[in-house]
Each structure stands twice: as structure tokens, then as C-alpha cells.
């Protein structure tokens, strides 16, 4: 049955990034499956009010004070009146928040629970437990997630992290990976025929592409923001050694950031300007054009929840060399990747191995695109997210949704189906900590009082119901090619 879903996050277009495109792709695929989806975000510069994107995806840009990197100021309550208005107007049943650093998302989940709606939270990033910033963020996340109906993480490592940070029941956390729009990341050789070939095309009948000779130039592509946590220091240390060890090798580096100056200094000190091409920052739609110029994608990141970019690179037919951190080892199969430790020496060794493997033509990179296309698609993500929605709304029974694993120690709690009774909610919040628990309960009580006040002052009857975008019939099963909407 179709649901009315509100995606809430601070991060959405016009800003571009992984979370933004995740929300957009997921929403549009859910609409394809017959649901009604709206997105609530804060007002960006030059982007205010209500907007419609393709396919009737409705965006509410709520005016709000932005403090840092498009994150709004956490006010806990001030978002409630307009949120309630939007929710009633759009007849929302499920509120789905994204990104743990977004205060919009946390507040929306709190208010939604007060209003008696089901909530889902998607975590896109990893956090440690050590530094002060993490401790604060983790407390806030605990506040957000104490009462959430279900959480979604993008990788198993991310799930472990979220379960620990928010003290969640692991069965209330699903792992649904990100995906890529494989059509947008086609390798060069695939350009012409990919459109008319089905997913199950007999790849073996394809002629083997021209093999790489021992003297041909191998191009290594790096596309990342040049920050410390993206491993730019490793990259800076490794590039001269990789180039010295492997003649006929070139680098293409796209991206900008505070470490760009270090990278340029390294190039000048080692006089590598003719071997390393720096492109600066590239737009997301140009990423594919940069990727297809290379043979190897190098990803030296130090922490990564999922690493969409390595999937994109593999989809472009690049052999991937990446560090074994975070959720990266789960993302791609062995034959597409070479893993390295986050150490300079090991990165050099792994890259040299990858170059040798490519030179000996052992790696069938021409098959990567079709394989990736089978592994990851937004359609699949939307289906799996829909199952989560069904589970929390009770359309599939809790036994089926949470499963019963007798004897494993998980089945003790009966609290998975979260009741809306205020006392039950307060109980959940009270367990968050000695002081934090009381503070959280205080916030919840105030939130509830505000809700009662709003119900009296601005009664529901006075709020107009928005007309829904005319629905298409739900996408049928025969519609096989992923993201086929774009090709029509």
C-alpha cells in the first residue's frame, strides 16, 4: 500500500553531495513505486518556498538560520509549528530523517513522534567515540534515536557504529547500501550500445578490448575532496614513489580542499607537473568523464561509511585501489579491488600490484559495469526501504519483520514496536543517561505541551489539505532496466 513519506534533512539540492543525491534518488524511486514523497529541508540561498522537482517530488524549503556548512541552528522546538503544518497539509504518515549531523532531522523525528507518526532514520556517516565533538554528537544522536521506529545504515560497519552510539536494538537497524545510477557511469567502450542492451547481455561474447601493452601509459584517477580524512596526506606521500616505481604512469587528481596546497608543493618539489594533472573541483555530472580517462581509481580515504565513489569508479570500468577502512571492504568484490592498509608503503605496494595486474591483462575491467549494475541499483534500495516502512507501520507482522532467532539472545525485548504513549516515550528517554535522561524527558514534555497548544490554537480543521501530484500507476515488474525512467 502506498505511504505518504516526508524526507527531512538539512542537506539537499542545490547543495550537491552523497546524502543529497541519496535522498533524491530514493525519493524518486519511491514515487515510482507509487508512494507520495515530499522533502523538507532548510532554505538555501536563492532557493526558498515550495518547489517541485521531476516526477512531482515536492520540496519544502523552510526558512531557518544556518550556522555551519549548511547545518541549521538546533533550536529543538522552533521548527515544530511549521513542521506540523506541513505534515498535516501533506497527510504524512512516515517521517524519514537523514544524516546524524542534521539538526532538522533530529527535531523532525522528535516532533513526528509527538504527533504520533512513524519515523525512520538513515545514518550516512561514521563517528568515533573519543573526542569531545563525537561525544556531543553521540548524545544528540541518542536523543534522536531513543524513540525512532527504525534506523537504516549504509553499511554493516555503519550499523555497528550506530548501534553502539545510540544504544539501539540491532534488529531495529537495517543495512541498506547506497547505490549508483549505473547509466551515468558507463565506461567509454560502452557508450554506444549500453542503452539498447539488457542487463543480462552475454558479456562473454563481447570482444575483449584492446589489451594494455607493457609500455602503454596507465592513468590513475583520484577524485576526492582534499581533506585530511580523505587520506590526502597518504596520497601526497605515495604519488612520487608510485611514479618512480612504475614508469609510464600518470595521475589525474580532481577535487579541491585545504590539502590542495600541500599536493601542489609536492608536485613542485619533485617536478612531477607533467605526470600529474590537477583538475580542481569537478561537478558530479563530470565525474564520469574524468573517470573514464583512467585505468585505476585510487581511493586513500581514512574513514568511509560506504564509499559511493568507488562503486562509481568500478561502474566506469576502473580497477579500484582503496584503503581497508570503515565500510569499504564490504562494498566491492575482490576481483574489482586491491586493498591497502592506510600506510604509505602498503599503498605504494598495492598500487604497483594493481598496475602489474592491469599490464598483464588479468583483470577484465570491461565486465565491471554490468556487474556493478547488478549489484547496486536505487530501485533495489527503494524496495528494501519500502519493506522497512511496511514493518514499522505494521503491514508486515513484527515477527516477520524482526524475525525470530530463538536462542540467540536478541529476542528479549518486546519494545520494538514503539508505542506512542507519552509515558512509554519518557521511559525510553529517561534511560539515556543520568543528566541527559532528565533533560531529554524535559524536552519531550515541553514538546508535547507545545503540540497540545498548537492543536488548540491552530486546529487541524483550519489547515488545508494539499492536493497530491497525480499518481502514475506503480512501476510494474517487467520494467526491468534500472532507472529506466531516464531513458524513456
Amino acid at each position, binding site marked *: 500500500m502506498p505511504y505518504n513519506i516526508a524526507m527531512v534533512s538539512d542537506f539537499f539540492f542545490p547543495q550537491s553531495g552523497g546524502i543529497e543525491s541519496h535522498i533524491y534518488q530514493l525519493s524518486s524511486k519511491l514515487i515510482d513505486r507509487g508512494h507520495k514523497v515530499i522533502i523538507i529541508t532548510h532554505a538555501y540561498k536563492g532557493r526558498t518556498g515550495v518547489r517541485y522537482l521531476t516526477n512531482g517530488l515536492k520540496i519544502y524549503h523552510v526558512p531557518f538560520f544556518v550556522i555551519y556548512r549548511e547545518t541549521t541552528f538546533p533550536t529543538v522546538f522552533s521548527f515544530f509549528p511549521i513542521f506540523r503544518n506541513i505534515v498535516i497539509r501533506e497527510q504524512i504518515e512516515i517521517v524519514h530523517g537523514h544524516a546524524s549531523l542534521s539538526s532538522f532531522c533530529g527535531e523532525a523525528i522528535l516532533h513526528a513522534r509527538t504527533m504520533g507518526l512513524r519515523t525512520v532514520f538513515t545514518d550516512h556517516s561514521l563517528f568515533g567515540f573519543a573526542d569531545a565533538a563525537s561525544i556531543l554528537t553521540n548524545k544528540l544522536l541518542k536523543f534522536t534515536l531513543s524513540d525512532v521506529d527504525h534506523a537504516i545504515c549504509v553499511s554493516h560497519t555503519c550499523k*555497528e*557504529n550506530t548501534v553502539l552510539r545510540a544504544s539501539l536494538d540491532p534488529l531495529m537497524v537495517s*543495512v541498506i547500501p547506497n547505490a549508483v545510477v549505473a547509466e551515468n557511469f558507463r565506461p567509454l567502450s560502452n557508450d554506444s550500445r549500453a542503452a539498447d542492451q539488457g542487463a543480462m547481455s552475454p558479456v562473454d561474447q563481447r570482444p575483449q578490448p584492446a589489451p594494455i601493452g607493457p609500455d602503454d601509459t596507465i592513468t590513475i584517477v583520484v577524485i576526492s575532496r582534499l581533506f585530511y580524512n580523505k587520506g590526502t596526506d597518504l596520497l601526497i606521500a605515495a604519488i612520487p614513489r608510485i611514479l618512480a616505481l612504475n614508469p609510464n604512469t600518470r595521475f589525474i587528481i580532481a577535487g579541491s580542499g585545504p590539502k590542495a596546497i600541500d599536493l601542489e608543493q609536492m608536485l613542485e618539489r619533485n617536478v612531477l607537473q607533467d605526470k600529474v594533472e590537477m583538475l580542481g573541483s569537478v561537478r558530479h555530472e563530470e565525474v564520469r568523464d574524468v573517470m573514464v580517462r583512467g585505468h585505476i581509481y585510487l581511493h586513500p580515504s581514512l574513514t568511509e561509511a560506504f564509499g559511493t565513489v568507488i562503486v562509481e569508479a568500478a561502474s566506469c570500468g576502473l580497477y579500484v585501489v582503496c584503503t581497508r*577502512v570503515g565500510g569499504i571492504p564490504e562494498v566491492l568484490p575482490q576481483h574489482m579491488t586491491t586493498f591497502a*592498509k592506510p600506510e604509505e608503503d602498503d599503498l605504494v605496494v598495492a598500487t604497483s600490484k594493481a598496475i602489474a595486474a592491469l599490464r598483464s591483462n588479468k583483470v577484465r575491467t570491461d565486465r565491471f559495469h554490468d*556487474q556493478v549494475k547488478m549489484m547496486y541499483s536505487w530501485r533495489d534500495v527503494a524496495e528494501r526501504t519500502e519493506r522497512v516502512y511496511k514493518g514499522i507501520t505494521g503491514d508486515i507482522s513484527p515477527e516477520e519483520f524482526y*524475525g525470530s532467532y530463538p536462542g540467540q*539472545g536478541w529476542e528479549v525485548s518486546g519494545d520494538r514496536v514503539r508505542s506512542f504513549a507519552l509515558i512509554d516515550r519518557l521511559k525510553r528517554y529517561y534511560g539515556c543517561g543520568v543528566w541527559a535522561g532528565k533533560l531529554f524527558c524535559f524536552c519531550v514534555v515541553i514538546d508535547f505541551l507545545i503540540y497540545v497548544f498548537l492543536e488548540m490554537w491552530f486546529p487541524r480543521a483550519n489547515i488545508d489539505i494539499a492536493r497530491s501530484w497525480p499518481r502514475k500507476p506503480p512501476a510494474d515488474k517487467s520494467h526491468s532496466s534500472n532507472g529506466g525512467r531516464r531513458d524513456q
Partner: protein
Amino acid sequence: MISPTSPTSPVPPPVPVDTHPNRASDTNPPGPDRIPDPDRLAPEDAYFAHSLSRVRSVPLNYEDGLRSLRAADSGVATLLPPRSNLNDVTRKDVRKIGPAGSRRRRKGVWKKLLWVKQSYPDNYTDTETFLDHLQRNPRVRPYDFWPLVADSTVIVQHVCSVVIFICCFVGIVQDRVSPVSIVCWGSVGTAIGWILWDNWIWEEQTELARNLVGVKGGDDESSSSSVTSAPHPSGHDPQSTGLKADTIHGLGLSMSPSAHHKEDVSHLTSDEPGAFYGIADPASHSAASFLSPSTRVPHADVPVIERASLFSSRNRQRLSTVKSAFLIYFSLLGLSPILKSLTKSTASDSIWALSCWLLIMNIFSFDYGSGEGAGDTTKFPASLSTNAAVMASTVLASRLPSTTHVFSLMLFSMEVFGLFPIFRRQLRQKSWTGHVLLTLALVMIAGGAVGTTLGGGWGSAVIGSFLGSLLTAFAMGGCSWWLISLQKYKNVVIGPWDPARPIIRRHWN
């Protein structure tokens, strides 16, 4: 349980086998092409029975879980060896892995992978792999009581010197103590401390030089043992000129970088001098760089010259110390009238509050480290601490009535906050008894000073020093015990979600 965990499996399998039917029958050995684990979670680390974490109750009360683990006395908990049953997946072509591939059993082996379509629900939690890379308190180092108390003496010393300074200031303000007498006593103490310190440095250097000379003397002896009287090159011997040249050359070599080393060894006829050169060379080289540049000139009779040059370099250093002391002295003298009227327009209350905060800042940001492994990381807080103290004494001095008062207090604060810590650090390295005695003396003086300030007279001083010592002893013991008892709340969680620390070899060429 899978086979490779057997080295660490006194652990009973926590999960009924029928849930994971293929685990037990997994015959694949851990091939080299399986996905190994991140390096920092290598299996060489200690393991612990993961059953505890597996059986814990579902709401996953995190603290409780940790406590139960800690109660089981595990430094590192719940770390399993890497999964081994992945290579059957990786060998497979992707096309086979779909619904068809995993339908060989309804419930195949759950894999911690995202790219495989699995027959498990998305919220399936695998009890064996879930959180298996979690490490708790991996680098915890338990404290012992007495070493902790011993280490706390450093803090006590500094706090006591601050207390003494404050009491001196109060005495000056209340006209009970003459500022000149304070600064005189302080200067005498500083002078004694400097002489001691200078002696230690001198001893250290002569020790080093003696070692060096000993090696070199042996060198000379051995090289001359083949021929006669090398130390007195009088030219009688037919070979003596050549030998003398050799010796000089050798010494020149020992002072210069070892570029000509081989060449010189090849000049020598016998083997053992060459061997000696080989030994002596690095030591002498380091000594040469350590000593003043004048010793780099080759001389025939080295030990005497070296000692003399060492002496002269020492003297030169002393001279420069005295010079800088005079510089500080006179600049303080010149600055005193300005400092006196610096905060005329500010109320005294603000001054007390400000200086209070500054002194607290001084105490909290003081560099209590031993100064051995202290790299450039501790430089900043140390300078912050000294600056705070100097500023505190400056604003305090501006409350004083005359230039002499101001000058005395400023000089005293320089001695207490600038020079005394250097002496204390050196003393601690030099002699532990001296360190303990100094601590005792400081505690008693500080207690006495507080007693005098509050009560007045000798009796209160004695009572104050007694109470102060008692209180300090209790505080040291109590804080140490408290810190040790707090250790059980230590809970560092490390896992694959932490940003990796990149290991980079710095090689700027």
C-alpha cells in the same frame, strides 16, 4: 564456529548450529585471497570470549555490557579472528550470485558484504560477526599507587611555589615583609640553584668528554704501541714523523665527518688502529658537534686542549648567563616605574580576580612532564603557563606602592616562575632524594607561609607547616587512590569506524 578460530576457542559456540548450517561444514581453508581484516585489528591482539557480548540482553545497554566485560577482566574484548568463509564468494562470478546463487540453501551463510544479494532480511543481525572488530581499552595501562604518589610530587612542588609567591606578595602588600629581603633571599636561592645546576651540567659534559677522551686515548696508545712515543713527538724515531702525521690525520679525521674514514684506515698498516678508529669515530664526531667549534681544529695533544676548550666554552656560557641576568635585571629596573602605574585606573578587586585566574591558568597549563620525551608538543602550554604567571605578577606588582617594591616582586616572580622550574626538573633527573627533600621543604615553607599570612607569628607558622604537610600528604594519597579507583570507568571503544591513522614515512629529499 568456523575452523580458524580454533586456536582461540575455549569459547563454546554461542549460537545454535542450525542457525548457521554452513558454518560448521565450511571446508574452505582460509586462503590467501580471502579478505583479511584491517591491520590494527589483527588477530595477534588479545582475544576474549565473545560469548559475553553475544548473550547480553537485547536493549543492548551499552554500559552494562562493558561492565560485564570488564568484570571478566579483559583488556581487549570480543575480537574474533577474521572471517574465513568469504573466498567461496569471491571466487564466484557475480552473475551467479543472485537469487539463484544463494538458493542452494534457503539460509546460506550470511556474509558481511553489501554487494551480494542475500536471503536474509536487511535488519538481520549476525550474532557472530556483529561487533567482532570492537576493541575495548586496547592501550590501557593500570596505575600503581606509590609511583602515582611519587609522580604527584611534581605538581605539589609547583603549587607550593605558587603559594609561596602569593604569600610573599601578601606580606609585601601588608607591609609585614620587606620586599628587598624577599628578593635577596630569592636571589641567594637562585644563585645557589644556578651554581648547582651549572655544576651538574659541567659534570655531565666532562663525563662525556672523559668518555670521548678515554676512547681516543686508547686510540692513541694503540696506534703508538706499534711504534714508540707518539704522545711526545720529538723526532728521534725514524718513523715518528710519519706516525705523527698519522696521528694528526687521525685526529683530524675524528673531528671531521667520516668521509675520509676508509682512506685513513687503508693508510694504517695494522688492523687494530683501524678498528679503533671505527669505534672512536662516531663518538668523537658527536662530541665535536657538542663542544665548541674551536675543538674542531686538529691538535697534537688533544685531551689537554679539549679540556681547556671545554672549560673556556663553559666560561663563555657562564658569561652569557651573567650577561642576560644583568640585562633582565636592568630592564626590570627600567620598567618598574611604568609597571607601578600600569593599572592605576583599575579597581583592586579586578586585579585580585584577574591574577587569581592567571595563576590558576599557570598551574593548570604548567608543563609537568619530565622534559625527556617532551617534543615540540609541550612547548606551547609551557610558554602559556609562564606567560600567565608573568602577567599575574605584573598586575599584582602594579598594586604596590613604590618602584623598589615593584622591582623586587617582578624579579622574585622571574625567579620563581622562570628559573625555579628549570632547576626542579634538573634536580629530579639528577637525584631523587634531593627531589623529595625539596618537595618536603617546599610543602613546609608553603604551609608556614600560609600560616604566617593568616595568623602571624612563629607559632602559627609551625602549625601551618604541620597542617600543610598533613593536608598535602592526604591530598596526594587521596587523589592517587581516587584516580586508580576511577580507572574502572575507563572505556575506550575502538573499531573499524574510527578514522585510520595514516602511517607516512617522511622523506623530504
